[in-house]
């Protein structure tokens, strides 16, 4: 075998391996998608059915029996709202830390991260009682505030790393021209770190969309997100696989499609953060 042939063979093997791994990883999602179009009987058939007459009955039932739109809207408001609020607080802070670091900057950042290690369950009762006191139980406002706080440390950390990559000379040049700090942030730093901002926000939205602990603990009906809608469907017997799959697809599809569509942005942003 010549070297050329060896190279071709090696490439074929690597490509096959890549696809096998990909299909294995994706298969559970694909299977859930298929199951959501089966009848309950087909869903638990042994051997499992790969070919069947698809039905959308599960989806119609879920829309009749639950308030999908309300829960989806709550998920959108709380994950986007929490992210926006956290970014608003984090951008100026991370900017100041990156461009005028003090003796304590590193310690402050690590301390911030350590607050993220505070186990949510350890402060569940206090947060519950405080929310109750302010009449915020089962409201989207409570979730937006908590979501922004639980993501703030990670957002700070990532933004700090992005901002640090911006060459200081660019800022110095603009300062010579007398740019104000506000303009410096909005006109220079933010556009330069745009990819980083977008990918940070995206990561935050994904994490909040899927946040389970606070959503389940603090909402009951009005402010319930899709996570709590799915949780209410989890029958311990597992007898309703088809309906469960349908509600799961409805809960996961929006953020998954959002993730797919913004993947380029996400990758661009992350690349920017990694390039010096």
């Amino acid at each position, binding site marked *: 075998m010549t070297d050329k042939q060896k190279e071709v063979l090696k490439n074929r093997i690597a490509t096959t391996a890549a696809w096998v791994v990909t299909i294995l*990883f994706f298969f559970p999602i694909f299977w859930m998608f298929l199951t959501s179009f089966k009848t309950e009987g087909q869903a638990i058939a042994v051997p499992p059915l790969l070919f069947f007459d698809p039905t959308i009955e599960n989806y119609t039932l879920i829309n009749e029996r639950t308030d999908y739109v309300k829960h989806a809207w709550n998920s959108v408001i709380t994950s986007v709202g929490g992210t926006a609020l956290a970014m608003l607080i984090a951008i100026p802070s991370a900017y*100041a830390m990156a*461009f005028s670091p003090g003796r304590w900057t590193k310690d402050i950042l690590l301390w911030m991260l350590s607050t993220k290690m505070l186990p949510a369950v350890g*402060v569940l009762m206090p947060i519950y009682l*405080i929310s109750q006191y302010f009449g915020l139980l089962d409201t989207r406002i409570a979730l937006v505030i908590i979501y922004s706080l639980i993501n703030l440390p990670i957002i700070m950390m990532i933004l700090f790393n992005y901002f640090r990559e911006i060459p200081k000379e660019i800022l110095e040049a603009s300062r010579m021209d007398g740019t104000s700090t506000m303009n410096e942030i909005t006109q220079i730093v933010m556009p330069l770190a745009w990819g980083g901002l977008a990918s940070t926000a995206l990561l935050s939205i994904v994490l909040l969309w899927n946040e*389970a*602990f606070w959503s389940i603990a603090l909402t009951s009906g009005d402010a319930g997100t899709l996570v709590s809608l799915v*949780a209410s469907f989890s029958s311990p017997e*597992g007898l309703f696989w088809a309906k469960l799959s349908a509600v799961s697809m409805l809960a996961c599809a929006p953020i998954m499609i959002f993730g797919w569509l913004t993947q380029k942005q996400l990758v661009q942003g992350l690349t920017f953060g990694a390039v010096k």
Partner: protein
Amino acid sequence: MNPTLARWLQAPSIILLLIWMIVPLSMTVYFSTQRYLLQKPQLSGFIGWSNYEFFYTDPRFWPAVLNTLILVGSVLAITVFLGLAIAILIDRPFPGRGIARVMLISPFFIMPTVNALLWKNMMMDPIQGLLAVVSRFFGATPIEWLADLPLFSIILIVSWQWTPFAILIFMTSLQSQDREQMEAATLDGAGFWAKFWNLTLPHLARPISIVIMIQMIFHLSVFAEILVTTSGGPGTSSTNLTFLIYQEALFGFDVGSASAGGVFAIILANIVAYFLVKAVGKNLTV
């Protein structure tokens, strides 16, 4: 920028996080010294260390601590190792790479509750689950995943969701690797492993620490996956500290001892965080 302005800009995030940390934390510490049972509000008052003693001597306590550490350690090892391997595998161009990438990162977007229910029912069910069907096809006896290997099953479920996160970060970082340097190394006769150890791995040092850091934070408080699949059982075999405290608070209605447990969890998290910061902190900032 003048230092005063810099301080003002940093103030909101620092103050908010301070409040977020101190207020509930001090309430938790306060509750932990009180007799505070939701079902018996008439019984209340200061009881000193009793809640701690009660929690510490609970036979479920040490297994829960151990399970927490095993869970975090295993998931980290699996996701970083698999994430690296897969990221390198898909770094070179191949037909359909764009689609493969989208498919590979998809599990990261799945909700923990959905993830757990999907694996529990459709994958790991000992009769109708796909894994059982596959093992019967090969003539093996299906494994009763959640009954016989509860902690391992949860490790698998969590790893399935988080490996894509590692892939995404590593894959992106690999794209910024110096191609000319790699080509030069190839021309000099460096093999795959030589290039991996001397060029790729050092290049990935920071992304690896970021992946470890972020995942550590999430896996210390794994909750939904346990609640939905095994509820910590059988026995205490898959109970982690978060879940133990949750049981104490919401099944036992004992705010006092749950708070004492919360303080234990916070101490454990801080010990882990300390070693973590020592180990990976140097790669991270300033």
